[in-house]
């Protein structure tokens, strides 16, 4: 076979041209020089209006264009002044008075006032808006009654602008985590003038958040929003602390595929990935870009305690005691996760659950025999439901095998698409269900409130009078110490009754370019953008 000279020449030219195409600076390198950060946001935001969204992808964008009364410190997670430059809390812990800083401005130059906050929070309490976090406001005096229409006069609700710069909140009971929630998106302010212009007080999706209409009060303003392509923001010159904001722009991409975001990182298209798939951890383990730190989230299995034989606590304990969590963490997940023997993760600020149990096969066998199933004989085939994800599958297969070997029982696995899984979860159509819970603030209540008998998130249908009592007591405790003691007892009840099987505490695993500075590891994976900046590391 002979190739003609012209064919070979053409091929060479083509290769040279393509090679020339390849010798360009990556987006990350250009970004480092121009202070433009590229981040994958994992999903197309459904909206930017902070009062109608409910997801993390939206929150990550809202953090750029809105600011609440406080901002958590990225190193310590302590609430620090933001729109409010100071605040006072009454001695009984139920009255918060925020002082709005004089320099706080909207992105159109108007002053941010206490009236904006009063108007915004009143908007959240309008049922027509359909805010999914409205229950977070029910700790405020009369907020729930106003939302449910039992009170029509808003002045009776504990949300009040005393004057332009004084915003007062009155709570039903002392709520220790209330201040930390002030930078959560439902608490963000919206500009009254803009909302009224678009008639958006009780209306969803009026278009006020489109780049050409948008007014926010965060360190950045929307520059461009092309669905499924990009959401970019640029520095807001009116932001009260704009002199300390170093980034010029932030570009967020809506790519859901975790393997693709890793590829984008490898190709120098993004500075940061949201996740790092388990399968890729080994590849990056020694890379300076790899970040691994504890995450305030718990992975567990829920029992449907209304179904036989799971209504028997001995059966539930037998299943919980025969799972080798160390092995799952070491051999399957392999990314620093901690085996869990209680529901709430340890937190760096004081709460460390004392309740625990052991990996104890002989005891589990004994309990199962006492429940009427010696060596698993006569035990019905139960189904373990999980949503589609490679790690959930691997863990479920391992646990299925552990139960078979250690107890002689058969469990079938059922993989479900996300919405089907949610439907099964909400309608209690399962025997055992995979579950995860992520803390919004560092407080054991985030996890333990969900197990009270009337909580909509309690899919186990388990209930304990004493447990409910303890959770009630935490809401009126006089000190954090006292509150934590109630939580400790509640946690012990969960271990004694085992309506769920704690499996492990999550870690954050992702890739962050070494050129990104001002990014600190913390248990909430919380990174306020005003502190971020880029350092050019090129030649």
């Amino acid at each position: 076979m002979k190739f003609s000279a012209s064919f070979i020449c053409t091929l060479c030219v083509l290769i040279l041209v393509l090679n020339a195409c390849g010798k360009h600076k990556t987006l990350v390198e250009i970004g480092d020089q121009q202070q433009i950060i590229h981040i994958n946001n994992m999903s197309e935001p459904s909206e930017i209006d902070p009062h109608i969204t409910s997801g993390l992808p939206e929150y990550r964008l809202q953090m750029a264009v809105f600011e609440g009364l406080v901002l958590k410190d990225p190193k310590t997670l302590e609430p620090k002044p933001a729109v409010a430059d100071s605040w006072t809390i009454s001695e009984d812990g139920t009255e918060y008075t925020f002082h709005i800083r004089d320099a706080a401005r909207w992105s159109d130059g108007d002053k941010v006032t206490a009236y904006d906050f009063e108007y915004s929070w009143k908007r959240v309490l309008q049922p027509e808006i359909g805010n999914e976090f409205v229950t977070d406001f029910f700790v405020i005096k009369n907020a729930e009654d106003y939302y449910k229409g039992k009170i029509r006069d808003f002045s009776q609700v504990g949300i009040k602008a005393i004057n332009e710069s004084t915003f007062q909140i009155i709570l039903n009971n002392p709520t220790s985590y209330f201040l930390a929630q002030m930078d959560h998106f439902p608490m963000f302010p919206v500009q009254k003038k803009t909302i009224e212009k678009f008639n958006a007080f009780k209306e969803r999706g009026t278009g006020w958040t489109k780049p050409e209409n948008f007014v926010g009060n965060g360190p950045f303003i929307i520059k461009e929003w092309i669905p499924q392509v990009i959401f970019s923001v640029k520095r807001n010159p009116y932001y009260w602390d704009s002199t300390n904001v170093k980034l010029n722009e932030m570009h967020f991409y809506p790519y859901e595929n975790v393997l693709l975001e890793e590829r984008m990182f490898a190709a120098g298209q993004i500075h940061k990935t949201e996740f790092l798939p388990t399968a890729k951890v080994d590849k990056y383990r020694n890379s300076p870009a790899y970040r691994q730190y504890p995450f305030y989230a718990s992975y567990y299995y829920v029992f449907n305690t209304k179904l036989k034989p799971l209504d028997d606590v001995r059966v539930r304990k037998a299943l919980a005691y025969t799972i080798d969590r160390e092995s799952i963490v070491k051999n399957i997940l392999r990314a620093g996760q901690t085996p869990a023997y209680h529901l709430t993760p340890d937190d760096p600020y004081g709460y460390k659950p004392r309740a625990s149990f052991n990996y104890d096969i002989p005891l589990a066998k004994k309990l199962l025999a006492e429940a009427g199933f010696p060596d698993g004989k006569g035990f019905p085939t139960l189904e373990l439901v999980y949503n589609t994800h490679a790690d959930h599958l691997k863990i479920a297969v391992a646990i299925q095998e552990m139960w078979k070997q250690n107890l002689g029982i058969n469990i079938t696995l059922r993989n479900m698409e996300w919405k089907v899984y949610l439907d099964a979860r909400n309608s209690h159509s399962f025997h055992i269900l995979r579950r995860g819970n992520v803390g919004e603030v560092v407080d054991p209540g985030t996890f333990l409130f969900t197990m009270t008998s009337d909580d909509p998130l309690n899919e186990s249908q388990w209930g304990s009078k004493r447990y409910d009592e303890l959770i009630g007591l935490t809401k009126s405790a006089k000190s954090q110490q006292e509150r934590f003691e109630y939580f400790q007892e509640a946690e012990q009840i969960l271990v004694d009754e085992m309506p769920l099987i704690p499996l492990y505490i999550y870690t954050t695993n992702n890739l962050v370019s070494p050129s990104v500075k001002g990014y600190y590891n913390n248990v909430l994976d919380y990174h306020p953008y005003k502190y971020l900046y880029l350092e050019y590391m090129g030649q």
Partner: protein
Amino acid sequence: MFFFIIRRIFQTIPVLILVTIVTFILIHSAPGGPFDQERKVSPDVLKHLNARYHLDEPVWQQFGRYVGNLLQGDFGPSFKYPSHTVNDLIAAGFPVTFELAFYAILFALLIGLSAGIIASLKPNTYLDYIPMSSAMLGICLPSFVLGPLLLLVFGIWLQWFPVAGWGKIPGDKILPSITLGASYAAYIARITRGGMLDVLLQDYIRTARAKGLSTARILFVHALRGGITPAVSFLGPAIAGLLAGSFIVESVFQIPGIGRFYIQAAFNRDYTMIMGCTIFFAFLIVIFNLLADVILLLLNPKLRQEVIGGR
């Protein structure tokens, strides 16, 4: 011809009605709803959201409302993206999907026709075996395998092209177009080879050769018209397939076409978006098949005679 086209257009109406009804029933039968979230929505909030989008009405009433809006060209608001209507999202996504399909078909025609013609001119030589083996490989290699392979080689190892995006970074349209067009190029190559071999054995080609016409003239003036007819008849379903098949490529390369919106809508149970995309795609497929039939009739007088008689 005019009456033939009108008749075919009327035939599409029941198809579209059926697609609308079946899709509506299917999506409302699927477990989970548009407002199911990780954090369970309280019953009060759910009640208001359902009322806002008329999901608290009986299904037949919802269907009636939907069809009423549809007849006015309104696909309704997206449940997932409250600030956008389905019309907005389709208008944003379709040009991208169409552009991708256009580049892919261009690539497929360029590669497929050339390979097919070369193979037919030198049957049973390496010029036939190499393109035809490659074509077989192209047919066997699905786009969800070829895409990541191309990404790995040209995106990550060689860093010649970006690994994701559309129209933002130079060269980001090349790999997706090749990925989507590759299997069609392979089909077109094989079909063209068969068609050309058929034609080149005809008497009128032998006559042309006997008259001493140049190979180029025989090929481009006499043989090609008959030879590529099978490839043209393949184009209608191919374009329809390209538009529908672009879903996978759009997902692999994260291209903001309708395919991606469609897939997301299914996961999000964004009812109006699923309906809008389905009806829109059904309409497109019907139109492209009609176009292919018309082109075929124009190319083939024998067929024209059979289908529309002497008119």
